């Protein structure tokens, strides 16, 4: 066991995967000698050589397109998109190509690959270094979407993603890169995709969240307990697609009161899916309407980002509102 930050856990996960399997390659912009703009790939080129961890020309479309080619021909590429905000030139390659290759070839060709990318706000990044675009991708059949929130899960989910036979978009909450630390087992282990993590048991209100919102929700839940004696059940979704739907419904039924939290905009956001699922499958268990706490339906601002991002007080308000309903 080592006590690592989330970014160190990602780095450890990459090294572990590359040591275990020679077909794993890591590439993207500035991931070589510089070690990535957040240092996720630090030391990789030194250890594995330029053939297995390397810089590419500045083209996300090229990065993902070539990753697909590598994946279909025996490599296990891990491609980094420097910021999730810059993934859109590759949208076509991800959505039309990687996600549909297995289906359109009747399973003859596949793209087992991982796209790692930091997402989310909280670093004074303004419009284009802060976005949470998971909903665009969670709408794409054939793709898996994974978002860890702890160092343990970051490594375990990354290793599971690299071993997965399908393309995985692995979104890393950059606000947590250095702000959370935790025990991380040495060597190989995996955390199964499409499983939920119960962050905190509780019988009064169920709060669903993922990524950088998890610690925010934990703080809100602690305050809810302290101030009002409200016991929250916190569920870290950690794989958004394919989702453990049964687990989600089970957790909703346990309390009958639900809050969904994400920093992405609300309209057609991931919270809408959770809300609809609950409405369809277990509305008879509900004691209160579902509440969403989300970013606003605007682009991401810079100076006022602390107003845009859901904070623990906004989450606490929602917990109280569904509890008091």
């Amino acid at each position, binding site marked *: 066991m080592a006590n690592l930050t989330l970014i160190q856990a990602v780095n450890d996960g990459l090294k572990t995967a590359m040591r275990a399997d020679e077909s794993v390659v890591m590439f993207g912009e500035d991931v070589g000698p510089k070690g990535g*703009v957040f240092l996720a790939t630090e030391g990789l080129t030194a250890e594995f050589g330029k053939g297995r961890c390397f810089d590419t020309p500045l083209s996300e479309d090229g990065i993902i397109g070539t990753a697909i080619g590598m994946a279909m021909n025996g490599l296990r590429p891990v491609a980094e998109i420097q910021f999730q905000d810059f993934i859109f030139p590759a949208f076509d390659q991800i959505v039309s190509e990687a996600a549909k290759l297995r289906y359109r070839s009747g399973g003859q060709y596949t793209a087992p690959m991982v796209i790692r990318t930091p997402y989310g706000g909280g670093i004074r990044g303004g419009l284009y270094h802060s976005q949470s675009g998971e909903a665009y991708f969670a709408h794409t059949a054939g793709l898996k979407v994974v978002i860890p929130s702890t160092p343990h899960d970051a490594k375990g989910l990354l290793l599971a993603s690299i071993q997965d036979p399908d393309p995985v978009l692995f979104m890393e909450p950059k606000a947590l890169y250095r702000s959370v630390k935790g025990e991380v087992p040495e060597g190989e282990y995996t955390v199964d995709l499409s499983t939920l993590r119960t962050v905190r048991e509780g019988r009064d209100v169920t709060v669903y969240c993922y990524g950088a919102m998890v610690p925010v929700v934990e703080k809100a839940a602690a305050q809810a307990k302290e101030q009002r004696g409200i016991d929250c059940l916190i569920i870290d979704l950690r794989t958004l697609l394919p989702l453990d739907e049964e687990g989600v419904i089970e957790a909703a039924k346990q309390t009958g009161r639900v809050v969904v939290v994400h920093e992405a905009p609300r309209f057609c956001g991931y919270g809408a899916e959770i809300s609809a699922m609950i409405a369809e499958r277990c509305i008879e268990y509900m004691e209160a309407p579902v509440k969403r706490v989300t970013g606003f339906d605007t682009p991401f601002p810079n100076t006022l980002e602390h107003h845009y991002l859901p904070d623990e007080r906004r989450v606490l308000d929602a917990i109280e509102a569904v509890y008091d309903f």
Partner: protein
Amino acid sequence: MTDMLTVISSTGATKKGYDAGLSDEELLHCYRTMLLVRSFDEICLKLQRSGRIGFSIPNLGIEATQVGAASALRKTDWIFPSYRDFGMALYHGIPALEMMHNMFGNAEDAAKGRQMPVHFSFVDPIHFYSISSPIGTHLPHAVGAAYASQLRQEDTVHLVSFGDGGTSSCGFHSGMNFAAVWKAPVVFLCQNNGYAISCPSDEQTASDGYAIKAEAYGMPHQTVDGNDLLAVRQAVLDASERARKGEGPTLIEAVTFRMGGHSTSDDPTKYVPKEIVDKWKKKDPVERFRKFLEKRKLWTQKLEDQMRKETLAEVDAAAKAAQKVAKPGLETIFSDVYAEVPAHIRQQGEFLFDLSKRRGEADAGDGEFPL
């Protein structure tokens, strides 16, 4: 690499009879602008290191490319800049204060504090197009804007500036291709400053320089010494003249070097060999132009000292003033998403406004939610 255009030799000499087409005053304005850029860099670095701004982009080493290119444009022309084009804005009289408002993202910022620092946007006294972070997206915009000018038979030139890294983007290909097919009045200025963050030019492209890429699009090109202000000016003037005459676009590659990090968050010593830095140190663009001025008897140490003092004072005063300006009001989160605020966004605005009032956090200037 194709032939490199130079005008000023390393000793500051120019060919006999050479005429830059600039008055003494304009030549000094070029020099002063480069010093202003240096002052801007210096002060922004301090502001960033002391936590007063989040980020800045150093311009050290590439001042001549920016100022030389800007000097070839008219006020009616349009600039589609990259984030590293401070000098183009300053040359055309965009006040340091306006730029500092952006660095602080305050209420006076043209972009209302929505963008990161160095993402400027101006329409006056010249169109200095709103900067987007995603690399290369602005090249086709310049081509479309140029098409509009062409259709209205204006003699406006649209200069679009980007880095060596930018040539790998989808926008580079579409922009170059469309402009050449349409014979649009565009000047493509590729600032080859050696690196795209940490990626050296020889890993960005396998072609012999960047200018030559134009040939594949059927477009003329010119390689130019980017540390030679007057050479860059000449190349942009020539390209603009062709564009104004309806002869279409040109790709200019200015060969220069980014002497600092990519940004204030970057440590270039991790990936730039020291020998390369030392080599380029000897080619300092400001010094080169100073020698030229000296030969023309336009430069004195006294003038230099005075200009340095003035430019530093100007930027320092701008920083101090910008720092005092309040943050943007809460409504700026919700305005300008559309021409009219739709109901769901209005509701979210009202929610936030009530919340902030309840918490006693509405910023000064937030009266009733105005949207």
